[in-house]
């Protein structure tokens, strides 16, 4: 069963704390993504990773960084979290074929107080 997992599912942090969101996939997909979802805004792309150590900024990378040291694992890091980073974060993966389909994880709901 193809699957994208995210940990943790819920997280509460204080402003200025560091945040680590983890994503895993068991499909050996080359490409992985991090999005955030806010009410009325749809999904906004934060970063894309094309493979291990091959990452590119998306549309809203400011305040975030990523790490991909294994193909099946992609991390999103918030150094010194801000209240406006309160959101639901989704990870996705896709094979680097012509399908362009993306497979999504269940999301992490982050609250920054």
């Amino acid at each position, binding site marked *: 069963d193809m699957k994208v997992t995210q940990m943790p599912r819920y997280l509460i942090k204080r402003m200025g704390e560091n945040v680590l969101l983890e994503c895993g996939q068991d499909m050996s997909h080359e490409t992985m993504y991090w999005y955030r979802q806010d009410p009325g805004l749809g999904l906004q792309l934060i970063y894309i990773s094309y493979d291990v150590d091959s990452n590119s900024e998306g549309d809203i990378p400011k305040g975030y960084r990523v790490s991909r040291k294994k193909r099946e694992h992609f991390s999103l890091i918030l150094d010194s979290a801000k209240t406006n980073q309160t959101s639901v974060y989704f990870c996705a993966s*896709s094979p680097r074929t012509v399908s*362009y*389909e993306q497979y*999504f*994880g269940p999301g992490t709901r982050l609250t920054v107080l």
Partner: protein
Amino acid sequence: AQSVTQPDARVTVSEGASLQLRCKYSYFGTPYLFWYVQYPRQGLQLLLKYYPGDPVVQGVNGFEAEFSKSNSSFHLRKASVHWSDWAVYFCAVSIPGTGSNRLTFGKGTKFSLIP
């Protein structure tokens, strides 16, 4: 750059009624188009996808969508809705040949049923 517009933030119908959710895209060529569904507290799931070919594509659970190049649209339809269809629906576009697999999403349409 490509963009996607879902003009209806919310659509409400009665159970058993038909459904149409609208999607307009902005791109001079023919893109790849997708509809995703998001059930409460879950991630997005692919409903159906369009690659150049037959303009009407069938998806899961009785959904279908029709591509119109002249109207730059990719509307989603279902003949008879059920309570299990209560969800948020996202239209997305991807540009072939760019090698990036990027999707641009609309802001979503929240679909609900009249109790």
